[in-house]
């Protein structure tokens, strides 16, 4: 067994980087027992916390980068150890030391692209509004009812553009006076912040805030729970306060106000996957379910792990850019759980979840068993 | 000092009537609220030390949680 002495300087550094709460850990193991990683591999948050407590973090190992920030252990930790902040602190330190293990390569290119173009894909900023071509989507101007902020994935990703398009269609159908900022949007910065790139996050946040203020934005509609979280919680650190609403909430409002009429039935067994950043991080559980329940014919079933207890898709915390072996993906478990329930459609409301679940569906050969859809895709089907 | 008995449920009637019948005098030395093991012991001690005690319990019987226990640590004897 190795013998080591606590390293004071490192302990201090962790504290300054935001990992002060590690000191509270009393090693009860609760975090390990709830962490989704332990469903697929051996992973110990307790050990990471313990290592940080004595100043021995192994910042070049993937362990430090595993946490998907799903929020499960912080929700349950009896000592409020703030595991997410702690891991982000370690990642900040790793970045500061220029640690570059191979698995972090995609994160580095994403951050470079974010810095240059405001999106992680290396796409041009100017093309950000291309998804809306041919749809009657206006640029946002002051006095409009709401800004629609579709997020990088829905703007650029070939598979996900359809979600942004569906959303715009629904808004138009409901007669919502909305606009987009196109090249005036930058990535919300939520995920890159979790990889420890604090300066980059700040840059992105400032760009967005400036753009919002310049355009007189008051209320923002988002499709991604990560944008929701960033605008609602992270940007509060900049002393700004925009009204933020997630599409699952907004759909409910439109239906309730009678602006959106459901005209068709949808005869399918459906189950809903709670995205971590919508559910656990922001407490939105009932809004999406409420919308689904309004659809005649739709049979909503609940998975065992739902609401506060929902299983993470595996893509949060910057894992969207880190390769996870196909066999180690939590989304596989989710697809199997939904399939086991007999659901024909697995609905969710997050671009990351959509990506992960769709990948697993194909990887597991569940094409004939179940479909993965974003909530607006279903609404789109029942309003025309 | 003039203290009202804490709100009692319908089941308290018997005891209350009993309290009334005590020579009309509703003046006691000590009022003990709560008839668990602790309240019972306090009442017994005070009565043995020569005081008149009113023991008020909101439930239908005295004994509190201890009465619900099977046996008690560390001797594991019966809690009754």
């Amino acid at each position, binding site marked *: 067994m*190795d*013998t080591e002495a*606590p390293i004071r300087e490192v302990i201090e550094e962790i504290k300054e980087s935001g990992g002060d709460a590690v*000191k*509270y850990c*009393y090693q*009860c193991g609760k975090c390990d*027992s709830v962490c989704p990683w332990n469903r697929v591999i*051996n992973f110990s948050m*307790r*050990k990471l916390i*313990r*290592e940080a407590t*004595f100043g021995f973090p192994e910042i070049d190992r993937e362990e430090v980068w595993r946490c998907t920030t799903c929020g499960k252990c912080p929700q*349950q930790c*009896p*000592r*409020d150890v703030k595991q997410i902040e702690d891991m982000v602190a370690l990642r900040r330190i790793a970045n500061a030391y220029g640690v570059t293990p191979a698995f972090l390569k995609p994160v580095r290119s994403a951050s470079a692209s974010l810095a240059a173009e405001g999106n992680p894909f290396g796409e041009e900023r100017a093309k950000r509004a291309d998804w809306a071509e041919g749809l009657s989507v206006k640029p946002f101007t002051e006095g409009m009812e709401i800004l629609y902020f579709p997020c990088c994935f829905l703007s650029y990703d070939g598979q996900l553009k359809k979600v942004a398009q569906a959303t715009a269609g629904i808004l138009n159908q409901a007669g919502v006076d909305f606009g987009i900022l196109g090249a005036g949007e930058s990535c919300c910065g939520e995920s890159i912040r979790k990889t420890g790139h604090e300066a980059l996050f700040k840059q992105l946040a400032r760009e967005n805030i400036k753009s919002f203020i310049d355009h007189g934005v008051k209320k923002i509609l988002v499709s991604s729970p990560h944008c929701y979280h960033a605008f609602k919680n992270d940007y509060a650190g900049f002393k700004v306060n925009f009204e933020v609403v997630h599409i699952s909430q907004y759909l409910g409002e439109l239906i309730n106000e009678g602006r959106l009429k459901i005209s068709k039935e949808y005869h399918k067994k459906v189950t809903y996957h709670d995205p971590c950043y919508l559910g656990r991080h922001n407490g939105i559980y009932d809004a999406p379910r409420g919308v689904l329940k309004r659809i005649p014919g739709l049979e909503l079933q609940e998975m065992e792990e739902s609401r506060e*207890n929902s299983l993470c898709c595996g893509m949060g915390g910057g894992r969207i850019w880190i390769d996870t072996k196909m066999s180690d993906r939590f989304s596989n478990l989710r697809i199997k759980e939904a399939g086991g329930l007999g659901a024909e459609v697995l609905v969710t409301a997050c671009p990351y979840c959509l990506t992960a679940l769709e990948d697993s569906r194909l990887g597991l050969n569940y094409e004939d068993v179940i479909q993965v859809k974003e909530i607006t895709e279903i609404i789109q089907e029942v309003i025309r | *000092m*003039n203290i009202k*008995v*804490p709100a009692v449920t*319908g*089941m308290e009637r*018997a*005891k209350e*009537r009993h309290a*009334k019948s005590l020579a009309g*005098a*509703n003046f*006691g*030395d*000590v009022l*003990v*609220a709560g008839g*668990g*093991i*602790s309240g019972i*012991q*306090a*009442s017994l*001690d*005070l009565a*043995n*030390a*020569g005081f008149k005690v009113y023991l008020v319990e909101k439930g*239908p*019987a005295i004994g*509190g*949680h201890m*009465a*619900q226990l*099977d*046996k*008690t*640590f*560390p*001797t*594991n004897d019966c809690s009754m």
Partner: protein
Amino acid sequence: MEYCPVKYPDQFNQAISKNKAIHIYYSQAIPLITYIDESCLYLKEKKCRICEAVCKNNAIDFNQTAEKVEIKAGAIVLAPGFEPFDPRLREDYGYGKFANVVTSMDYERLLCATGPYEGEVLRSSDLKHPHKIAWIQCVGSRQVTPGGSSYCSAVCCTYTQKQVILTKDHDAAAECAVFHNDIRSYGKDFERFYQRAESLPGVRFIRSYVSVVRENPETKSVTIRYATTADGVKEEEFDMVVLSVGLNPPADFKDLADKFKIELNGHGFCQTDPVNPVETSRPGIFISGAFQGPVDIPESVFSASGAGSRCGELLTARRGDLARERVYPPERDASGEEPRIGVFVCHCGANIGRIVNVPEAVEYCKTLPNVVHAQEQLFSCATNCAGEITDMIKEKGLNRVIVAACSPRTLEALFRDTLREAGLNQYYYEMANIREHCSWVHPKEKEEATRKAKDLIRMSVARSRHLEPLMEIELPVNKAALVVGGGIAGMTCALSIAGQGHEVHLVEKETELGGTARRIHDTLEGLDVQAYLRDLIKKVYRHPLIHVYTGAAISDAAGYVGNFVTVVRSEGRVFEIKHGATVIAVGADIYTPAEYLYGEDERVMTHLDLEERIAKGDAKVTNAASVVMIQCVGCRNEDRNYCSRICCSESIKNALKLKAINPGTDVYILFRDIRTYGYNEDYYREAAGKEVRFIRYEPHDPPLVEAVAEGGKSILKVTATDYVLGKKLELDADIIALAAAIIPAAGARELENLFKVGLNPDGFFKEAHVKLRPVEFAAEGVYLCGIAHYPKLIKETVSQAYGAAGRVLTLLSSDTVTASGSICAVDENKCISCGACIAACKYGAIEFRETPLGRKAAVNPVLCKGDGLCNAKCPTGAIQLKHFTDDEILSQIDAALLEEESAERDQAVV
């Protein structure tokens, strides 16, 4: 009750079983009356009234309404207890969702013979016995997560061990797993209790909190997931999961506080005086039991006595004004009469009646010689049944009464009283235990149980024929008390007794009062102990009724309850003190460590040394860059198999002090379990927040302390394994503080002999009964409090000292005490003066006296405790314990054999 159509979840049985709207709360309830609750159809919907129609006594009155009664009182004791944590509040454990996740309170009911399945532990999903059971600790406690409590509930570790032991009693093959983080066996005998549970086969204690994962849809078994340091996270399926729920404030705590205008603490329990947990923020209102915070039964009991004593101090002038004496009818002389035996066979609700055929037993009784009356009763201990017994004694001229029911331990006194009410000598009462000894142990063999019940009754009948009336002796009570030990316990107790008008002699062996507290400077709550102590000492010296003897030694102690004579030497003079009660409050000592270079290196000290040096501002300590504390030094081992209870809190207190002086000091606490039970858990977290680092070690791999030379300097190095890291940690230490054990006071053995009191295996003074008489000795008139009883914190000592004072007052406030009639007597004709009995008697009750027949043993009736040890030693059977004479016992045994013989005969005939 049978006719009531309503079936609703029985609250007493944690809603596991069903009950009727009209019912008896539980079978031994006091008052034992049927009542109608809120689920009654008539009360809810104005329908039904079946019970009114069927009741033959017209006892049901639907027109009763709640009455308001005004009571004027001079003082109030609040004892509203606690409410178990409701795990439904948070969804994480599946309670209310999964059928086989139960709370510990539910499980208590399952274990209990009066419980929902009559003492069988069954799963509600399939009524099968669970074979594999898991307990999850700290549910609702030790957490800052919303909905939980930050304190430790203090009782759940030990009650869980109890439940494990009882589970194994029910089913020896059961597999039990307890998931915990720290086992908190901090109380007297708790450590042994834990070892007992832990060493049972098939029992595992696993250090991990868990998550409840899922219910198996078919078997309804529950899977939980837990973390191990060696093999990572594991999943395991259990037939049943028990949640060890914590103690929350009573349900209506806010209301209560408003009504009585008392303050609550941040947790919703009562805000008490920092040193005296029975004192509220409002004068005249005292509290006791679990309303002060999570406490166990012994503490609930002595805090109750303590609250009683505080009331007594307040109201001493009024004592006796309102109380009434009980008057018994004159006793009838039945000694010349032929035995006329009455037998009352109790159903104990269903406890006995379901197993034993009671009517058959009654019929059998009638065939026994001298039995002139036999009948059955539903609950013999209920007031109406006792009345029936009295009536029968008078009507049938009974002169022997047998109740065939439960244990004499609990109810003999009650039935003896019943005989007195009927004018019969109470020693004509005899009890046959057909519950604990029969129906409870043979629940499955009904016929055999009935036969055994008959055997037991026949034996009692045989014995009762020989019973003799005995006289109890009334002894006068000297109104003064002697308190031995002038620490916080002794002084507090003395002040409380003196405050109620009794003279107190306070004997202290040192030249100064104060005891261990002289070395303590603060409490975790921030009390200035020295100031408190100075004040206490001043009050003691100023009290006109307290006589203080310092530098004193007790050279002799004689006498008995109410009439002790003790010889004290103090400052060259000898005093003979007469007193009615004795309180032992001699405290305890600190272990001198032989471990970890103590005594070899001056940088190694005890926790108390550290505290004193911090208080003095010793720069060596306050400027230390690194302080390492090692817990459990000298106890929780083979030599001293107990936990010293206070040292975890003590070390945390010192750590917080050091951090307050110099936040940069590195403080490490090397522990086995952190035992900050109750509110002290908050300080554990606070210390962690101040970056005090806690490192757990295992007893088989204790920390290694070495003095090594480095760079020409000697450096203390401490090496300890960290199980989560899987590494050894090496710590440099400027100071090492050892949490040295608290050990029994040096003079404990001597006092044991002088006052005829007992010590427990660890050498601490042993109370008469852990739960029911926690502050008194088996030797009557002798009481105890403070750390002489067991290590405890100052506020616990104070509460116990008031408790002891309360018990002393129940003795000193009466003019006489009665001594039992069941004592030994010597047949001088048979006594051969060998002295064997004198050597056997622990109470010094026998001595030689000159008689016309020569020097013979003689029993001092007031000293004899009736334990009968001497009887067994006497070679000629000259000394006999009355009420348990050879005739009585042998006739009982003969009666047992009688049936066996006849059974054998029957067999032979077949």
